[in-house]
């Protein structure tokens, strides 16, 4: 329906919004993120209402190591910055730089995930299992949902890197990259809330 009206072989200014399909994708993804906000909002609400129910397990104050979490936070926030660089590279139609920054983003995301897995492993050894208490169940569910989102993002962006290297940048791949960037920022914002509500507030006795 929407004939691509740009000159053959030349990418339009904002390739992610050049076609109706692209604009649909971007709008649809904004709406999806609206739904995701409710999803995480509900998880936060459940966590906040259950976080004092520790039973015999360790308390949040005893458990959390802010140093580790701060490093993880720094890594994830940096990955958000690198994803911005990727989108900038896309707007400059620099595919090589785009792929490079996406790879950096994925590596940072994977490091964050590695730290989180180490953290969970550590907590389980401290006697903070998934079934220990209502606090532990809601903690692992909230933080785990976020971790699963990070994992999904890593797989997704990796697939996009493969596609970009095979098909290059065009009006089909550009919206995909743009939308993945939005997703990655969203994950970061959620993490900022987790860092504040779960970890920092957990340290306040």
């Amino acid at each position: 329906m929407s004939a691509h009206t740009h000159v053959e072989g030349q990418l339009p200014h904002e390739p992610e919004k050049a076609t109706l399909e692209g604009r649909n994708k971007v709008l649809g993804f904004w709406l999806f993120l609206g739904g995701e906000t409710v999803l995480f909002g509900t998880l936060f609400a459940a966590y906040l209402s259950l976080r004092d129910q520790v039973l015999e397990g360790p308390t949040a104050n005893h458990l959390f190591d802010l140093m580790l979490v701060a490093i993880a936070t720094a890594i994830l926030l940096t990955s958000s910055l690198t994803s911005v660089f990727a989108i900038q590279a896309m707007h400059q139609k620099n595919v090589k730089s785009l792929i490079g920054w996406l790879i950096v983003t994925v590596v940072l995301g994977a490091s964050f995930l590695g730290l989180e897995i180490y953290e969970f492993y550590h907590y389980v050894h401290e006697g903070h299992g998934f079934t220990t208490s209502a606090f532990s169940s809601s903690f692992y569910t909230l933080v785990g949902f976020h971790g699963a989102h990070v994992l999904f993002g890593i797989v997704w962006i990796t697939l996009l890197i493969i596609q970009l290297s095979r098909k290059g940048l065009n009006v089909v791949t550009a919206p995909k990259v743009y939308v993945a960037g939005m997703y990655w920022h969203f994950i970061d914002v959620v993490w900022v809330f987790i860092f504040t509500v779960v970890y920092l507030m957990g340290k306040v006795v």
Partner: protein
Amino acid sequence: MAHAHAVKRYSGLMDWLTTVDHKKIGILYLIAGGFFFLVGGLEAILIRIQLWAPQNDFVGADTYNELITMHGTTMIFLAAMPLLFAFMNAVVPLQIGARDVAFPFVNSLGFWTFFFGGLLLNVSWIVGDVPDAGWTAYAPLAGTTYSNDHGMDYYVLGLQIAGIGTLIGGINFLVTIINMRAPGMTFMRMPLFTWTAFITSALILFAFPALTVGLAALMFDRLFSANFFDPTAGGNAVLWEHIFWIFGHPEVYILILPAFGIISEVISTFSRKRLFGYSSMVFATILIGFLGFMVWAHHMFTTGLGPVANALFSIATMLIAVPTGIKIFNWLFTMWGGSIKFTSANLYAVGFVPTFVMGGVTGVMLASAPADFQYHDTYFVVAHFHYVIVGGLVLGIFAGLHYWWPKMFGRVLNETLGKITFWTFFIGFHLTFFIQHFLGLLGMPRRIWQYLDGIGFNEMNMISTVGALLMGVGTILFLMNVVVTMAKPKNASADPWEDGRTLEWTIPSPPPEYNFAQTPLVRGYDAYWKEKMEGHKGMTPAEPIGPIHMPSPSILPFFMGVGLFVAGFGFMYAPDWGHIGALKTGHFIGIIGLATTLLCMVLRSMIDDHGFHIEEDEILKDLGGKA
């Protein structure tokens, strides 16, 4: 780029499994939703037969619990929602002058996840472990302590899978309505059904994720021994109530708003008048959607949230009566002075108005927290919500079925049979539920499977059962109408009611695959009516005739649904099915199912869909043939 436009176009069963055409997906939703409506209706009739006489033992207490749980769950999630999605699919793109929805692939995926979720839920009947904790699945009753067979697992997983379909369907319609409107189709020129579909989709977007979390938490509690809702491990049973109703109350408006839209279209068409107070209708719809998120705790007045919370939620609930009242008066004023044609569709619409008012009035009664302590958990509540859901939504669906049937299938339903169906169903409905108000006021609790003789419940229950059977007869008559009509030739004209006001009546019944040979130019509200009044035969085209780009069909959505269905089974039965090596067999199957779905997602992402073009000569042939 020289890519081939020759795409395999399937026929027969494969066509239906792979279709991404919104009109065919609408029909699929109609068939699946209709099937589940019959299942839920059968459950309702069994419930009423059990209550036919005091201390009846037609079904046992356990079976009775299963019947009421599955009746509620099936009717809300698997019958009402998909039937509305059927109309949204069949009508919304046509009403806004679009060739398809924004995401045809996602549309198909939404249908198949709904379908396999519903199937999973109902397989529980065959297996024999049926959900039995009520459609609200209150904790701790729904937890493993009190429901230790697989019944509630079916509920949790089935609804989770079906919910994915609903959520992506909602997003799809939001984007479709925002981005795909024809030139000139501004927001304040959109037909009211499209408006209600739009607001309902927004409600779906913001309400369903809460259910997703609630079901996930309950699933973790049941399958992985988490402690969200188990008070002995620090969990909080009231948390479930909050999460469920934060979803559940908007859900009620998700259901009723499209029915309001259908009624508005039907009444306006058959009164042959512009809808009275169109702008106030639009704003009332938005206001109801907004307030719908502020009233969830009115389901929890007796939970003990305290007088302040109860008072606030009570007031917020009563406020909803204002925009709803605006709508009622607008329908009345639309009919006022119109030359009304009482077709079967219009009979349902006109029958809807007083019936829904009755449901609304009992709603305001229930909204008063002190009074609710008396009504709570009695048949008064049962009567109330059946008045709004059956008397509101189901009458709306029947009105829509009769109204848009020719557009969907190219054949007009038999009017005589339609009118007989209406009276049978309408009288049956009031016979069933009107009397239940009084049963409730006399103190009959809901959800009981037997009552004693000699406390004055006998006659009223018997009357109610007779009414339910009459509604069953009405439904069978409708099915007969469908069969009779389908045997007739496909000869409906583009505008079979001759008074069509909106864009769907400007194109053939059923429309060609591409809907509009030329995108129409919309010059006002009631776009087609405006052209008719100005003496034009049809719409002014906004573009020349040319090749039309179409998306390719795909089997992937079907397999994504299958994958989730299989995964649901695997995780559910993991404790029972032994081990493969270190891994439980069930988990192994579950992972295979999820991997299938993910693999399909990867394939969808990696393989570009170039679609195909319908060429100019094919379009011209269609135009010539239908002229």
